């Protein structure tokens, strides 16, 4: 490992910016966030970056390192080619605020629009019984640390900017956790199609590939939800029944 490396860091505001090179000492075990902090402490006090736990648990320090969406705190320098400058730039799908910080408020707004957890009544003793085998499927989704890297890489958002029509992988995982929760009684299937745009996902698995928690977003969350949508809303027999009954709602 070399004793110093160059980091090409995006410095900018809401409207413009440029890469700036910083050379800083590196040592065994360092991660990209360490280098950014060193640069911040020694060369650029005002370099804006979000971070909290530095252990891959809070999902704050998302960025694009050499073009790949990553948590900076979990990206070891020894996995990178340090003979060339390492580029560090903000998530490009979200509006820039300053340097490595982006405006991710859209995610918080979308989450609010998804119907909340609604449990069935508890058993006589006031508690619920659930079995480990039933909760494990949902526990996978609940590992999500809301780093929004999946949103950053999703082409429906990144290239097509369909923020108004598509909730993005993170919120489909969130919806899946609710839909598959053994106690939940609400129904989000129609919303997923109509308002959350689940149909726009064409399962390219880009989100799954970048998930730092290794959640099988596409296979375990999105595809099963798509199947529910299809079973419910595109099944010709069910459709006919709905027409006959004249029901506006799908039970």
């Amino acid at each position, binding site marked *: 490992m070399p004793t110093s490396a160059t980091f090409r860091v995006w410095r900018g505001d809401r409207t413009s910016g440029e890469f700036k090179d910083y050379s800083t000492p590196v*040592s065994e075990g360092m991660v990209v966030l360490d280098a950014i902090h060193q640069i911040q402490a020694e060369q650029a006090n005002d370099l804006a970056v979000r971070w909290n736990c530095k252990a891959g648990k*809070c999902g704050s320090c998302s960025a694009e390192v050499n073009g790949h969406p990553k948590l900076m705190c979990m990206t070891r320098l020894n996995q990178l080619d340090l003979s060339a400058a390492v580029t560090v730039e903000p998530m490009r799908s979200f509006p820039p*605020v300053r340097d490595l910080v982006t405006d991710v*408020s859209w995610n918080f707004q979308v989450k609010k629009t998804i119907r909340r957890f609604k449990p069935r009544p508890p058993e006589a003793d*006031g508690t619920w019984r659930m079995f480990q085998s039933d909760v494990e499927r949902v526990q996978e989704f609940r590992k999500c640390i809301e780093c929004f890297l999946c949103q950053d890489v999703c082409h429906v958002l990144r290239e097509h900017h369909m923020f108004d029509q598509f909730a993005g992988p993170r919120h489909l995982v969130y919806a899946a956790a609710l839909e598959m929760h053994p106690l939940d009684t609400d129904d989000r299937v129609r919303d997923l199609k109509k308002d959350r745009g689940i149909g726009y996902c064409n399962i390219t698995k880009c989100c799954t590939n970048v998930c730092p928690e290794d959640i099988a977003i596409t296979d375990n969350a999105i595809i099963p939800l798509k199947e529910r949508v299809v079973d419910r809303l595109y099944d010709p027999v069910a459709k006919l029944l709905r027409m006959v009954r004249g029901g506006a709602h799908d039970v």
Partner: protein
Amino acid sequence: MPDYHTHEHDVLVVGAGGAGLRAAIEASAGGASVGLVCKSLLGKAHTVMAEGGIAAALANVDDRDNWKVHFADTMRGGQYVNNWRMAELHAREAPDRVRELEAWGAMFDRTTDGRILQRQFGGHRYPRLVHVGDRTGLEMIRTLQDHGIHQGIDVHMECTITRLLKDGDRCVGAFAYERERGRFKVFRARAVVLATGGVGRAFKITSNSWEYTGDGHALAYDAGAELTDMEFVQFHPTGMIWPPSVRGILVTEAVRGDGGVLKNNQGRRFMFDDIPPNYRSQTAENEEEGWRYTQGDKNARRPPELLTRDHVSRCIVREIKQGRGSPHGGVFLDIAWIKERLPNAAEHIKKKLPSMYQQFKQLADIDITREPMEVGPTTHYIMGGVRVDADTQMSSVPGLFAAGECAAGINGANRLGGNSLSDLLVFGKRAGEFAATFARQQSGAAIDSRQLDDAARQAVEPFERSTQGEGPYQVQYALQEMMQELVGIVRNEAEMRRALDGLARLRERASRVGVGGHREYNPGWHAALDLHNLLTVSEAITHSAIERKESRGGHFREDYPDKDPAFGTVNVVVRKERDGRMAVSRTPIPEMPLELKKIIEEMK
């Protein structure tokens, strides 16, 4: 006249970790309009890092457990200087708070009959920690967050309070800057709840994130509230130590709860060498019994690795100092050895400790299913904080409440693992409830504009000195180095006196710190403003630690290595005098009711 936006709430909650979120939910359920301020984005607070679990005597795994046992364990762990009323309320109410989380969507690991599973942890007599693998904090904060966003709470993200506002004696609001644009905000409120967490960033080696700069402690102190127990800082025995960049990151106690053992470089399980008398009857006789305990044998007693954190940390320091440490200056924590006992041990470890497995694999190139980890103590938690009324969580300043780590009382001289998450829930709820009640009883308040002018002026001072001044990070690092060295795990009077001199010099340096650039998302500016809080809590810790001339729990003095019964009846309190001086005093602990005394006697 400074330029700022004004927001009005019945209750303003500062901090959106477990305690703050729970307080906001409760206040809002009580009909109050609630503002919730957090330094980071919602859901990123330090609670997210809690790993092991939530302590609550549900008795799902061992039916001998109940609130009385939990109460007695908490008092024993705290070496009996706890606020016994808080310890009682906590033990009684924690089970309901956990069940409530399940009603809000939390998914804890299950027993074979479908109930909430509980695991063993240090200092708890029975398996008591409700958990989800080793990511319980994430489950808790996400559950509260996802419930809270539907409660009509106004969330002000990436916003930092720099000062509490008062009308006479009463706390009636707060002054803040928001990170994104650097603009000022004034919050008018009828009650304020501080839930800002701890002070770990005052030390060099810590498991805490950048947010842990003692904001609530310092805000309350500056507003005239009392702080207590500040000498009691918890150094968690197992933090990562290698490579250098990950030093301090937490390694959950659950590793030991699930069978992990501590060894020195001679391969000896040194924890068997020093078992404190008050835990002897509860501790395993030998390695075999300890193993059986971790595997759920109800007739076995805890292995000594699960003694309280203060004790385990000191044993580790002893091993290192006497030359029996690991190559990088720690000791070995070995969970891989269980493959001698269990089939599929590797899979078992990955399932029980998934984030530990990942953390070591990714950050240290260590496969914990095959080789031991190197660990050493890391600054983890402060038992001390704002002195509050046990039932209502109100401080000595009317209208100012505190809950969670920034409040003091429940933990005494040492906190048991798992009691933090339950503390957040129990006292977060209480603070929210009583803050809302208090708010209803108040009429409007006047905020004198001089307070605002003064707050605004102070906030921009670092820019006036621009980059001619010293950088904020250099002062912060110097403070962390000094506190670690002079007021760390092993303390003595001479070193702490030096620390006080050092703090005075650092105060002086902090007053000359300058930052360049503008106010929009400028971390240098934020770091400069945090310095005052870090210095204030460091002074409080040092003064309190000098005052307590004995060793107890997290506070160890090599010049007074024994417990002194006289100090077992008092708490150390600090308060800001009118002249700005920090006054230190001892306050007697109120007499415990007979009923609680009896419980402690019975559980001895």
